């Protein structure tokens, strides 16, 4: 294990606490891959090879001995259609979208199978599903009493961003870990050093993180209450509290688990879990998905603001 170049006491602590470490280091990662070019302090231990030109680290350990999560990742689940188990269905517009618009079936990611909604909340979830393609553009907060925010290119919130059918990239240093999601280029910073209460409500929430052994634990609060969990209308409110756990299970996959607590909506906290895989293509990178221009016609044409009015017809 030491070939990864752990240093000092923290490495020992990590080695003692972490079974996962064996898996991480046992995947034949090139030792130098965990090190960047330049004056990495342990570079000399890698057989004296000059560090290669900076190549983003793959797996292994970061400079501070923590698991190195840098990289492009993606979940392979159909949970964005429905976090609960679901069968294949035609999409909202089968007359034009055919198989393209259809929903794949899936086993769901909810532990125990069903979300423990309170009765009123379950009713709202069912209404959400019925109205999921409703778009209502107003210049007041009623614009959020509509269908799935994803349809309108709104930020997805957490945990949904992690299981949308898009890759995301993790950027890690000692004090902060940043997640950038290909969908909409949404991002969030996880504060490892200075924890604070969410200063204001937001779509992506406020993330305070810590390491528990090799598990990255992120406490997410400060949601604005507009988030949906999927296209099926599952949701939480602005009192939601999400605790995420990211645990490496090898160089190229993580187990993701999130506990979702929201006394306004659920009778008890509940959990989701699924694996997240590294995108291994040599040229893997996020490709811009700025969806605002993709939704403008849908949002503004029905209220007469997309096409300039035809003056000759007046």
């Amino acid at each position, binding site marked *: 294990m030491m070939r990864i170049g752990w240093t000092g006491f923290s490495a020992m602590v990590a080695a003692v606490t972490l079974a996962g470490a064996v898996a991480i280091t046992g995947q034949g990662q090139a030792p130098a891959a965990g090190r960047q070019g330049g004056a990495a302090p342990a570079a000399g231990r890698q057989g004296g090879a000059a560090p290669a*030109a900076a190549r983003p680290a793959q797996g292994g350990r970061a400079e501070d001995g923590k698991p190195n999560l840098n990289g492009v990742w993606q979940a392979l689940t159909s949970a964005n259609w429905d976090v609960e188990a679901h069968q294949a269905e035609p999409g909202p517009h089968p007359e034009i979208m055919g198989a393209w618009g259809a929903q794949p079936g899936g086993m769901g990611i909810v532990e125990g199978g069903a979300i423990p909604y309170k009765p009123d909340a379950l009713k709202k979830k069912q209404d959400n599903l019925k109205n999921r393609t409703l778009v209502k553009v107003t210049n007041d907060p009623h614009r959020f009493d509509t269908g799935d925010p994803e349809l309108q290119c*709104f930020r997805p919130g957490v945990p949904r961003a992690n299981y949308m059918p898009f890759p995301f990239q993790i950027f890690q240093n000692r004090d902060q870990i*940043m997640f950038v999601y290909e969908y909409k*280029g949404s991002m969030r910073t996880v504060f490892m050093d200075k924890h604070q*209460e969410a*200063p204001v409500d937001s779509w992506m929430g406020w993330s305070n993180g810590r390491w528990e052994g090799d598990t990255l634990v992120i406490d997410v609060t400060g949601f604005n209450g507009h988030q949906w969990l999927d296209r099926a209308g599952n949701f939480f409110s602005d009192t939601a509290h999400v605790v995420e756990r990211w645990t490496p299970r090898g160089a190229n996959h993580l187990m993701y688990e999130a506990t979702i607590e929201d006394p306004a909506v659920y009778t008890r906290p509940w959990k989701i879990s699924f694996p997240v895989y590294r995108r291994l293509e040599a*040229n893997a990178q996020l490709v811009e998905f700025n969806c605002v221009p993709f939704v*403008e016609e849908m949002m503004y044409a029905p*209220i007469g603001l997309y096409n300039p009015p035809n003056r000759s017809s007046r």
Partner: protein
Amino acid sequence: MRNRMLRIASALTLATVVALSVAVVVAQTPSRPKAPPKTATSTDAAIEASAEAFKKSVELKNFTVPKKPWGEPDLSGVWLTATYTRLQRPQELGDKEFYTEAEAIAEYKKAAESDAEVDPRTVHYDWKEYAMDAWQGGATPNLRTSLIVDPKNGRLPPLVPEAQQRRAAAAAAARERDPAAGVKTFGNLYTRCVLGLGAIPLVRGGMPGADSAATAAGVTAEAFFFQSPGYLTIVMQSNNDVRIIPTDARPHVPGQVRQWLGDSRGHWEGTTLVVETTNFSDPKPATNFLGSTDSLQLVERFTRVGPNTLRYQYTVTDPKTWTRPWSVDTTMPKIDPSLIYEFACHEQNYGLMNVVTGTQIREREGTRDMRGGTFARPPE
């Protein structure tokens, strides 16, 4: 460096956009911001502090660039892209490339005071009420009389003929009809929340004396530089635009992959990070930077020259727009704290529908447009 809290609160207000509902925003803010620092409430205090920081940065010698644990020079932090310095040198300054230190401070003072002075009859926002004027946020004086250093006259090179034709055609179309009469024809990407203000290039110059602070120096002009092994990632406060810059010399994406912010590749030359960006999209009905096309190429150079100063140089090339490449050399001051806040622009874009609706009404009534022209009354 300045305490940014007050400005943050206001950036959020803006993000909540231009909303009718200040009350909503206030209700959402759980904790009261601390009392604002003097530099946010008094132009004199702000100008004095900026002048001090400026003098210190000019005097600084033998600065050793701090390094990240993995060996790369440390560029991380939040850097301010707002500046009162004009992109192009005012004609009357001729070949004068530099101000004296005293002149630079005097220019800054003039610009800051005019920025703070607002005619309530014409103003859209009085940005200083949100602590968003550049003098409140840590903008610094500049010895240079213009951002452009090449050509030597500090001015943009002439347009090529096809760019002149594009510009003339756009102006003619706008005389015929305001492009804001429909989202489809509306080229203002910021009003549409497609892009924020100035992610690439980062520093675009100010227009001191302009009656909107947005053009006087720039607003929500914080650029968060997040460094991790092999990457510099820049997140803009404005619209939270994200630029991911790998520094491992990998090739650009294929030519058919076009992006609003282009495709950036970085490499280190000593302590300077050199970033080349290509693959810009054709953002019709808008244009790329300053009327440029999808042939735009940008080379940026980032060098930490002081604890709180990042030198920022860039060269712009677009053979379909300018007769020759041109270059900028400027600096960005570091500000605290090192984070940015969510800027959910599109989600709460109440402004766009108001702008488009208003334009359609003006057109229908045959009233004057905002640029001072008159719309032809539609045929009966």
